[in-house]
């Protein structure tokens, strides 16, 4: 098979690249995704906060993902699911110099391509890299794994948890587990500033009075069969049966292999200028992004540059393999500068009194007196946040045998969330109960689409709507 563009990975970066390529009229594109569906990690990110920046909408992960899936529907034949790219190498063909071996359940497929986009996302650091001594009992999970087990596999991983790392996934999981009745004892952060977005700090930790210990690490894990507790570097001992590790994400580039001082493994494109100009990295495989919106933007930009490249224009793109060292260096510089700014801000008392507006990507910081916003909406938002904060509730319900992620159709008063969760607990959609779907009884397993109203006027005038369907 010969292709103009081979996209590896069907997450937000890969989907956005493909979407834009088709918009630009590029033909012969192939997208390979190792799982049985598109979306990457978005379907397990059932919380809201996606799309604020590029769509101006507050969506959950599955909804954001299904927008792109809908757009790609006409190109279904150019998408291979359950297809794992095993390796990429240099081919003999001068016009199509990149060769890829793709493993599928029907055997291997070989593809030759002009360009390749690595939209392979990132992976989590585990306990090894977190470097935590102690026993090795059950109950130590990385945050992303915990998220997928709870949100996709219907499994609760413990009764009481300590969360290591205050990155966004750690914060999101703190709230998610708390909502589902897990006693989240604390979040510990080795750094002197929290890692996650201010919005997540407020909505995930402060809302639920979960303590955050900065400059703190876990110094030991105890327990023989199951975790029984941890020791912290601040001298505290905490009883818990679960430890969740949110200790950083690493771009997944293993298809390119790593450079090594001592070993034989060499990067595919090292020393081959022409070949490395044809390898593009986008999204989290380039560097780890805070917002999925930025990843989608990455994808669109990569598509435009590939289009130019295929039209024989000489391009110099930050996504090209030749330039990733520099791109990454610039990103680290930006992250470092942001951190320094944050440290400074945290030194002032006002920091804890300002509210970061989340209505648009400007992220204005609204002071107590309502100043600091670039528009009036900020002051109004901050005023509401101070007096009567509202939240979109995201969780999941069982409809027949499908775990369906849901959210309230609009924000509800924060203090009503326990009541809403209570109602969720008692919701039953199945053959043996009288609950209804769209006001009608459900005699058989219903087909559910994202956006379907499962319960009308669920609480405070908000409906309960499905954010993910049960059909592909």
């Amino acid at each position: 098979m010969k292709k103009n563009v081979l996209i590896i990975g069907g997450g937000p970066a890969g989907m956005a690249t493909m979407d834009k390529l088709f918009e630009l009229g590029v033909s012969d594109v192939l997208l390979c995704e190792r799982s049985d569906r598109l979306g990457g990690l978005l379907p397990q990110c059932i919380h809201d906060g996606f799309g604020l920046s590029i769509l101006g909408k507050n969506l959950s992960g599955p909804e954001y993902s299904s927008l792109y899936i809908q757009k790609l529907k006409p190109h279904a034949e150019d998408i291979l699911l359950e297809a794992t790219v095993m390796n990429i190498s240099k081919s003999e063909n001068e016009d199509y110099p990149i060769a890829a071996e793709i493993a599928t359940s029907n055997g291997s497929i070989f593809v030759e391509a002009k360009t390749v986009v690595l939209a392979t996302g990132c992976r989590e650091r585990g306990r090894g890299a977190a470097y935590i001594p102690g026993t090795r009992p059950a109950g130590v999970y990385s945050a992303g794994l915990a998220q997928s087990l709870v949100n996709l596999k219907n499994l609760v991983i413990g009764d009481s948890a300590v969360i290591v790392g205050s990155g966004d996934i750690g914060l999101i999981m703190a709230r998610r587990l708390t909502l589902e009745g897990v006693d989240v004892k604390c979040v510990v952060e080795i750094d002197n500033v929290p890692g996650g977005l201010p919005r997540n700090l407020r909505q995930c930790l402060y809302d639920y009075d979960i303590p955050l210990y900065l400059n703190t690490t876990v110094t030991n894990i105890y327990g023989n069969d199951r975790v029984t507790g941890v020791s912290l570097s601040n001298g505290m001992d905490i009883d818990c049966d679960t430890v969740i590790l949110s200790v950083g994400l690493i771009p997944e580039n293993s298809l390119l292999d790593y450079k090594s001082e001592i070993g034989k493994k060499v990067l595919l494109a090292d020393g081959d200028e022409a070949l490395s100009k044809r390898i593009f990295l986008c999204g989290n495989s380039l560097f780890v992004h805070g917002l999925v919106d930025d990843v989608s933007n990455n994808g669109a930009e990569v598509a435009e540059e590939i289009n130019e490249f295929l039209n024989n224009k000489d391009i110099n793109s930050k996504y090209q393999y030749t330039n990733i060292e520099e791109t990454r260096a610039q990103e680290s510089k930006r992250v470092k500068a942001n951190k320094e700014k944050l440290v400074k801000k945290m030194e002032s008392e006002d920091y804890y009194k300002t509210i970061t507006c989340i209505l648009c990507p400007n992220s204005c910081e609204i002071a107590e007196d309502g100043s600091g916003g670039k528009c009036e909406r900020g002051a109004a938002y901050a005023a509401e946040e101070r007096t009567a904060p509202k939240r979109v509730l995201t969780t999941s319900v069982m409809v027949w045998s499908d775990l369906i992620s849901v959210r309230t159709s609009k924000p509800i008063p924060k203090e009503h969330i326990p009541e809403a969760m209570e109602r969720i607990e008692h919701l039953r959609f199945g053959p043996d109960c009288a609950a209804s779907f769209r006001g009608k009884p459900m005699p058989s397993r219903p087909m559910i689409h994202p956006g379907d109203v499962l319960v009308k006027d669920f609480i405070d005038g908000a409906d309960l709507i499905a954010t993910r369907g049960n059909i592909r």
Partner: protein
Amino acid sequence: MDKFDLIVIGAGAVGSAVAYEGAKNGLSVCVIEREPDVCFETSARNSGVVHSGFNNPTGSLKALYCKRGSDMFEGLATEIDVPYRKTGKYVVAISDEDKIYVDELYEQGRANGVNVETCEFQGRYALYSPDTAITDPLRYTIALAEAAHLNGAIFHFDRNVKIIEKNSDSLFELTTTQKGDYGEKEQIFTSRYVVNAAGLGAADVCRIAGIDKFEVLPCRGEYHIVDPYFGEIDYPVYPAVRPGADVLGVHLTPTIDGNILIGPSSEYLQVSKDMMLPELYATTGEVMDQLFEEGSRLLPGLTKAAIIRSFAGVRPKVLVDGDEYDDFLIDESIEGFISLLGIESPGITASMPLAMEVVDKIISYAPELSAKKVALGTFPYNRVSGAAQQICRCESVTANDVLMAFDRLTSLGARPTLRGLKNRTRIGMGRCQGSFCTGELITLLRQERQIDPMKFSMAGAGSEMFTRRLR
């Protein structure tokens, strides 16, 4: 009551080798193991090196069986389809004072009949042992157990031996208890011969049988496993250090799967009676730092992020009447009850010669037992790497790999656990340490093998992975 020619206590490398050798010679064999699966303790937690035998004092059992094991390992590995790679090994004098230790090892190696030479290694004086090799101790032990099983050996897991006595027919009677879902179950097995290959539990088993003079002295060794993408080394490199020196003398060992192991350390543990095995296997911040520091001197550019896992193994050193006995020890204080004690390094290498010795001994007592000699087949794990749907991307493990391992595990009688499946397929052993594949594995087992996730454990009863269903 179940009656056997031979009962083996312990399903590690030595116990499984005894079962394999026994079954091969036509004995009816029963293996009793306290863990839910084979290879959960000492045999799973080591460097995976097939030693050539220069490192042990001339005339010791260690030297004898290690040399024999080294000579036969390649053939055995082929027979039971276990990975094996002859890498050679260097022992390097770090300073001029250490040269003498290289010379001592050279003399000892020659005396042991081992092929050794002295050479220059990166400008330093060193010993080279061309016959040192690496293997996968997990797959080695599992293959031996499965081959034994296919030839009639019966395995019982999750069982502790409580009483060992001789009955009126002068057979050994072993009372065991099994922790099950419905409380403790007692079962009695009888046999003509017993081999105690219980590793860390070997002295306890002796005590139960009425032999009081032994104690196991646990000596912990911690390791770091390095991300295969960090780089590879071709052969093990050990420093030559004065015995009892202040440094760990950190070794670098390549694994057959492309990782580098840094370690092991060496730390004698003070054990109290109520100390549980997992506590012995705990890693400590102090040693982890020490290993990292010495490791990064040998591996420039090593970062903590490149370490994908740290673990510890425990050497079951043996004390006889309170004094350390620095060798393998084969005890037959009670005739027909053969205990193998102090089987630490080079235990994997020596496991088969030790097993052959023991089984030969039993057959010399009762030649009639070996009349019905059966042939052993080979039972490869045909990994369908590449051309199939991948479950674990890091280690290229497919759904079929997992299901086949699961079926073989259950037919052996073991309890399916995450660790057991990892040991067989390497699922979750890669650089992401299971953060992508664990969920997929749970779904696969539920859909294809009707395994209730709520009962699925990491490593046996008590280590269940989930506390409840969400909805």
